[in-house]
């Protein structure tokens, strides 16, 4: 049913419809409304799940790890410092091939403290072995959770659904919340591969000496690469079952005719589409390539989609300090060496710590790269706040 609903609440209701057996989370802005709502749903007896209250995100991640290892469908959600505190366990979950689903309500990282949105948090654990899917709006954020459980349980890889904090989590907009039966028909019961059970003691993720460890990493890497098929399949199954497109590997908007292509991920693509339509009316051909699956990275798709595009600009809400744009690096690496020549791939970082990204900011970016490529730039930097002596 179509509802005008807060993003967090939409996600909570859809997660509940996926019938997780165990939920454990520690409240942190801007994720809090999701787990609060889930706690209410469990408390009201509408979902038969264990809701485990914990004293920290480290424990929340540990609880879902244990629950998943014991054969439960397990869910958690966090943001920013919470995700960093989880990070040790995050790696273990992937290494143990536990199909946990997590919502990352994307938020900046301390210090200085910022509760506002960017994507530095999920980026900090991009190499941990999780699938990372980015939502464009609250409809997609909700839909991706249904897909995430299916993808996770088919691939035995954990899935992180990333949604921009505040911009999506706290936004009221229309979301079609499916019927319970529709979700039940789409998402079969979880069939664990191995179960840890005290009646039959065994361990997982225990010890791999130098004769074995390398191969565990190879296998995990290949599993992530192979999950491409599952992500695409589940996305098209979803479209068949629910009648709308959602998720997948990449998406595009007015790309075919475009002279300039903007690449980005998350909620900012909505604003980019708006700009593209404005520019089209002015006679300019600009297109969008949207990264839906950040891990595994859609290298081949990016290359295929942009083979003929010579002016590309990557806009991202994260930075590798001392290196530059992270998504930009991934995009640059997607082209074979010989094809990098004469191709301009500009890199912009924007919106860190919740800085508004306006259509005017984006217009400035597009107009700038129309003239000349930009190696790396902070969009909307306030020069007056910066002193040479601080650097």
């Amino acid at each position: 049913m179509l509802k005008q609903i807060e993003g967090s609440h939409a996600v909570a209701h859809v997660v509940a419809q996926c019938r997780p057996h165990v939920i454990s989370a520690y409240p942190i802005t801007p994720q809090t409304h999701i787990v609060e709502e889930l706690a209410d749903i469990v408390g009201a007896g509408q979902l038969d799940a264990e809701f485990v209250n914990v004293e920290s995100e480290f424990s929340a991640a540990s609880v879902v790890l244990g629950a998943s290892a014991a054969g439960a469908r397990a869910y958690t959600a966090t943001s920013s410092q919470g995700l960093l505190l989880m990070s040790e366990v995050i790696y273990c979950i992937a290494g143990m091939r536990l199909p946990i689903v997590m919502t990352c309500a994307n938020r900046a990282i301390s210090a200085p403290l910022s509760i506002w949105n960017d994507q530095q948090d999920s980026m900090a654990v991009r190499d941990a072995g999780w699938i990372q899917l980015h939502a464009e709006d609250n409809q997609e954020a909700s839909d991706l959770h249904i897909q995430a459980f299916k993808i996770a349980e088919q691939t035995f890889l954990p899935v992180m659904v990333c949604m921009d904090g505040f911009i999506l989590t706290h936004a009221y907009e229309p979301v079609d919340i499916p019927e319970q039966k529709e979700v039940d028909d789409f998402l079969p019961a979880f069939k664990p591969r191995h179960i840890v059970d005290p009646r039959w003691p065994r361990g997982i993720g225990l010890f791999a000496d130098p004769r074995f460890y390398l191969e565990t990493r190879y296998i995990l890497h290949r599993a992530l690469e192979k999950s491409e098929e599952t992500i695409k399949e589940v996305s098209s199954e979803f479209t068949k079952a629910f009648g709308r497109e959602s998720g997948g590997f990449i998406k595009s908007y007015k790309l075919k005719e475009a002279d300039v292509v903007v690449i980005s991920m998350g909620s900012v693509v909505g604003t980019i589409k708006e700009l593209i339509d404005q520019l089209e009316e002015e006679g300019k051909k600009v297109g969008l390539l949207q990264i839906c699956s950040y891990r595994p990275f859609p290298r081949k798709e990016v290359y295929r989609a942009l083979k003929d595009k010579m002016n590309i600009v990557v806009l991202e809400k994260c930075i590798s300090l001392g290196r530059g744009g992270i998504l930009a690096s991934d995009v640059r690496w997607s082209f074979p060496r010989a094809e990098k020549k004469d191709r301009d791939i500009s890199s912009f970082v924007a919106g860190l710590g919740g800085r508004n990204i306006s259509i005017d900011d984006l217009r400035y970016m597009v107009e700038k790269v129309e003239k000349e490529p930009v190696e790396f730039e902070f969009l909307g930097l306030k020069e007056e706040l910066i002193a040479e002596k601080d650097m």
Partner: protein
Amino acid sequence: MAAAELLSIAAFKDGKFAQAFPSFGAERIGAPVQAFVRLDDRKIRTREEVRTPDYLIIQDYHLIGAVPVLDGIKPDGLIVINAEQKPEDLNLKTTARVETIPATEIALEIIGRPIPNAIMIGAFCSITGLISIDAVQEAIMEKFPGRVGENNVAALERAVEIMEKRKDA
């Protein structure tokens, strides 16, 4: 944020597309916060903050001196302010139309608490006709079932009454 949420839900009930979101997340009662609402007949895609609004609802007129709240309002826009004074007595530097309503006073009388949301929404919807009062009432009763909702609906109706009288005058 509650007012923005209610406006967006009411607009949705009227068959419009609506988007509402806060600009500051660390809300605590008493701190200045901003929230934005967009209304459209088609799906709303943009996520940028509203910097040049057509309409501005100021829940507490004391904010006018404390934060640059009037910046960006369109020259022919509308500002609805919770204040006991008449618009001309506030000495605002704007070409936008200004309407005031003593929302805190009305809230204290009808709701018993200084929560001006329903009154401000009522005034706004009455002046602009953008969202039906019926839809707002429905949205309020869904969010606050029972006494609280009924009191807020009564406050909303009072605001509409005041604005309708002004139209006739």
